[in-house]
């Protein structure tokens, strides 16, 4: 079920304020964040975030196409290294 339109998109407030401050003072450093559930709003376009995936921060550069997606969608939390190969012993 999709989110109620009444509420508008979920945007992490702290992060939003940080973005505003950066826009005011001219763009500069990427913003580290844990707010994976934060929707990318048009104001974020052109900003770079470092989105935590539980282990490390992945750089995410926001483009216009990404508006409406969540930050977490761009920072995968799982690593798939292929299945084990029984014949050659443990993982190949």
């Amino acid at each position, binding site marked *: 079920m999709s989110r109620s339109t009444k509420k508008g998109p979920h945007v992490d407030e702290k992060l939003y304020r940080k973005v505003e401050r950066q826009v005011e003072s001219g763009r500069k450093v990427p913003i580290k964040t844990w707010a994976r559930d934060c929707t990318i709003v048009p104001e974020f376009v052109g900003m770079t975030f470092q989105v935590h995936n539980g282990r490390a921060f992945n750089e995410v550069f926001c483009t216009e*196409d990404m508006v409406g*997606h969540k930050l977490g969608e761009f920072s995968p939390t799982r690593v798939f290294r292929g299945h084990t190969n*029984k014949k050659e012993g443990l993982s190949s």
Partner: protein
Amino acid sequence: MPRIAGVDIPEKKKILYSLQYIHGIGPKVAADILAKTGIDPNRRASELDDQELSSINSTIDTGFVVEGALRRQVQQDIQRLKDIRCLRGDRHRKGLPVRGQRTRTNARTRKGRKKTVAGKKGVKG
């Protein structure tokens, strides 16, 4: 044979159902089109005259995306997801279910036919 929205030529069936042979037209849209043009849904496709067919054609042209255009649109939407390298795009690329379904079992529609692996499921390889 009547010809609607390009190449589609369903006949003999009631027009309500023959319209559904067009990609992008299901029960809902077929009924909507007939209501808009004022054609009785119970009539056979072959019974319609040229004028009625052209009125169906023009309603489809103006209000609905069907066939090639629709397929292209879907393809573009998927391509967009792939291009921005988000999770959903990744799942499309890997041919796995996109909407969070389990993949330990099932998911055969996306993954295709079973590839049996020796040594799995207790059968020592």
